[in-house]
């Protein structure tokens, strides 16, 4: 699965806690030294909470902080950060890879994992120093927590109260299916569903999700089925000579086509799936939907959490509640988290969401409290309003990455980060710099950067457009090709194979450009490996 994992704060190469100046005799200090215990963690949490709720005006779910070992952290990683996700080999694979990389020192462990649930669960690792624990609490338990609770996408698409209960149900349900229908069949169904996870998301709201009632709903459905069952139906003779095939319009209306949520369509309409397989698809779909806001708010979510932890730790230091040494340790981690190498740096691997997010939040603070003439012209809404937190809370609540960047990225920051737009046409032998951080380029750079975080750049636009009901029941999909970039063929074929297995009949994918010309056609015949006897 290529889900955006739960938010992680990366560990810098190797921070060395511990070596600190001798404890000053200031009674206001929350702690001295590097070791932590429950009392200090609690003290830190209370001090942080005072600042977060009092001074920053954050609004959070109740917090639950869980202490785990590094091995458990790896465990949690493997199952996309969820503590009780169902069992599947791919999680074992991720664990094996993460572990190998961790052992070889190629990758540091995250300091924390935070779960969008109520109570909001943050994991902290026992190996970390108390300064790091304070940082994690400020970052996850208040920064991310506030974002989860207030951002409109999370409010619309996730159910923080219900998620843990739902995962419980999902795990038990899939375990039961494995018992009843065999591990292999369940595994294959899950494989197919996972391949379509990114195409299993509703993009536009339909109804409020209520995960708590999911388990009940499934039971009720089974009960109704049981009650309605009548063996007589089996003996009713089938109608001879079906009506002439309805026209395309009618058929598509009947099937609610086109449909971009492939998992949803297959769950509802695939003719040959067993009821439990539909439920499995549904579970995977819900998990994908639960994570979809995180994929769309990476920059904002991290920016929010990083800004919050920076404000809080700085405030704690100002108040004399943490020592200079602890503050230096914090700054060391903080700066390595928000480090953004230039494009020509060997360490460059795209824009660091922490760096961009944090810089934008600081920029908003600057514009609200100390704007220049340019800022006033660009952001008349809040420039000079004096209340940075109000502006930030408003942004955190009402935007996702794409709209946030489009709305808030300032010329000042573009100059500071020296952003420029590079145009790469495969027919040309050169890259073109089509906009830079100057008067003519600001808007274009901003638009392009925002577009990078849009749905359409995250996932290719693939829809189910038709089913050949009259003929061989072939399922027809369309990929709306943007800018001439086709799908990676090998993977696309493998995924189509999964689609065909779920659908039960052949699958055909057209890759069409804007004008409707077909650039490529992929056909995959169905295999019957998913059909139970």
């Amino acid at each position, binding site marked *: 699965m*290529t889900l955006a994992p739960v938010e992680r704060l990366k560990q810098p190469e190797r921070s060395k806690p511990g070596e600190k100046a001798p404890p000053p005799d200031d009674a206001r200090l929350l702690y001295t030294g590097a070791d932590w215990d429950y009392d200090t963690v609690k003290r830190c949490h209370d001090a942080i909470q005072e600042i977060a709720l009092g001074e920053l005006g954050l609004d959070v779910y109740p917090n639950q902080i*869980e202490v785990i070992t590094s091995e458990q952290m790896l465990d949690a990683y493997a199952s996309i950060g969820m503590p009780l996700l169902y069992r599947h080999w791919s999680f074992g*694979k991720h*664990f094996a890879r993460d572990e190998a990389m961790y052992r070889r020192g190629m990758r540091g462990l995250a300091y924390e994992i935070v779960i969008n649930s109520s109570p909001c669960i943050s994991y902290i690792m*026992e190996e970390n120093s108390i300064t790091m624990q304070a940082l994690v609490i400020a970052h996850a*338990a208040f920064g991310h927590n506030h974002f989860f609770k207030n951002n409109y996408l999370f409010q619309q698409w996730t159910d923080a109260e219900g998620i843990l209960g739902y995962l419980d149900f999902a795990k038990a349900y899939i375990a039961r299916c494995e018992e009843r229908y065999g591990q292999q069949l369940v595994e294959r169904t899950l494989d197919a569903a996972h391949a379509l996870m990114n195409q299993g998301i509703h993009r536009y709201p339909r109804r409020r999700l209520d995960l708590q009632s999911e388990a009940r709903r499934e039971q009720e459905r089974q009960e109704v089925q049981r009650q309605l069952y009548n063996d007589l139906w089996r003996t009713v003779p089938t109608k001879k000579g079906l009506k002439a095939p309805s026209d395309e319009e009618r058929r598509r209306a009947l099937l609610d086509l086109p449909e971009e949520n492939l998992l949803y369509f297959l769950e509802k309409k695939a003719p040959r799936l067993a009821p439990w397989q539909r439920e499995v698809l549904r579970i995977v779909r819900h998990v994908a939907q639960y994570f979809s806001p995180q994929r769309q708010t990476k920059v904002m979510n991290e920016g929010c959490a990083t800004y919050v932890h920076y404000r809080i730790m700085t405030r704690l230091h100002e108040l004399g509640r943490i020592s200079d040494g602890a503050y230096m340790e914090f700054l060391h981690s903080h700066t390595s988290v928000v480090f953004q190498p230039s*494009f020509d740096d060997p360490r460059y691997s795209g824009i660091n969401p922490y760096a961009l997010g944090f810089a934008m939040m600081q920029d908003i603070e600057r514009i609200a409290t100390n704007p220049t003439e340019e800022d006033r012209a660009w952001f008349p809404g809040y420039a000079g309003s004096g209340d940075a937190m109000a502006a930030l809370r408003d942004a955190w609540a009402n935007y996702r990455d794409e709209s946030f960047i489009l709305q808030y990225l300032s010329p000042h920051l573009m100059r500071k980060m020296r952003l420029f737009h*590079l145009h790469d046409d495969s027919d040309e032998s050169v890259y073109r710099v089509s906009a830079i951080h100057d008067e003519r380029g600001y808007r274009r750079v901003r638009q392009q950067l925002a577009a990078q975080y849009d749905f359409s750049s995250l996932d290719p636009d693939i829809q189910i457009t038709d089913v050949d009901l009259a003929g061989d029941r072939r399922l027809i999909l369309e990929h709306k090709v943007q*800018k001439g970039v086709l799908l990676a063929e090998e993977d696309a074929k493998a995924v189509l194979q999964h689609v065909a297995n779920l659908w039960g009949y052949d699958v055909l994918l057209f890759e069409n450009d804007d004008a409707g010309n077909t650039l490529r056609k992929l056909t995959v015949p169905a295999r019957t490996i998913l059909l139970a006897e």
Partner: protein
Amino acid sequence: MSSMIIVDRRSNPKGKSLANRQRFIRRAKEQILRAVNGASSNRRIKDVESGADISIPTGGISEPTFHRSGQGGIRDHVVPGNKEFMEGDTIAKPPGGGGAGRGNEGSPDGGGEDEFRFVLTREEFMDLFMEDLELPDLAKRKLKAADAVLWQRAGYSSSGSPTNLNLVRTMRNSLSRRIALKRPKTEEMLALEAEIAELEAQPGKDPDRLMELRGLLERQVLRSKRIPYIDPIDVRYNRFTPIPKPAAQAVMFCLMDVSGSMTEHMKDLAKRFFMLLYLFLTRRYKQVEVVFIRHTHEAEEVDEDTFFHSTETGGTMVSTALEEMKRIIKERYPVADWNIYGAQASDGDNTTSDGGRTAALLEHDLLPACQYYAYVEVGSDPDSMPAGFATHARETDLWRTYKQITGTETPFVMKKVRHRREIYPVFRELFARDGAKQSEEATP
């Protein structure tokens, strides 16, 4: 003020992802097995034992998704760190790049990986490595002396040492006896005493009642004295019974010809074979001892280092080594107590006159004592030989000698190995579950 909860999860059971890991290994088993076999033929066996870094092709374990290809079309990137570019500037594409995206864009999670690398634990590795192998003839597991006794719980007894007292049983018996014999309860007696004390405190209030109560109390005290709280017949002890423990111990004899004709390559092959056998035995037996015997025209027992590394010169008399083995068995490893395995490696040279004696020693003295005896004939590396020169070598002296023994109902096998990649297959052949004679009561 804090509504925060801290939960310590550190003591939660470890390896929550174990089930996932097992599923993953089962899923990728075929590839992993191939990689394990590859690892074992290319690496030092010693390294193999410590688990392994395994790298397998992503074939059966890929997780495909719909994503855009890295090639073709038009791409737009916004990147940081502009130093000298102005709008309209062009940058030459790196040769061969063919319009691929910059940085990591365009290749989503894991899309570009060809090989999947991870670490197998020692257990997992050995499980796969030794899969389908079986030690032949495990039948002999004679009971050793008294020290190999396992004590096992076996119900209760009415006699025993105080440390084995079973309190629950004892009290249960005591309770039922007290109920059956109507021993007065302490509370009842206390209540009586209290009532008496109350009446005594107000003299003359109800003398008859007082009298009656006193009589009752006296009877009860008497009764409780006659019926003890715990009687010796209540007492129960945990009973333990000795179960003779099978002496699952083995000794492995490594015999090797170290005369001048044995090249480093041959010794290396032999070593690999011995190591494999050792690993295999350690998985089957708790305790495995190894005896190294090297021989030229005379044999001696040596330590491991000398065995593999020092060179000797001299003729070749295989019988001397067998003689030495026989002597050591007699002295230190009584056949009744030990599972004896023999492994011999040689280039096949032997003094012609020694043939009869060697065969006789093996057949009449050693094989009856051994669980299994394997002879591996190591040859020169066929790859390093001039073409047309090697391969169909004639049968060696020792091979001819031993050939008379195989085929009969003896725990004896012989194989030829020329290249290190053949070691593992040959080893598997020797111990393959079906190939070897199975004993009725296998498994240690």
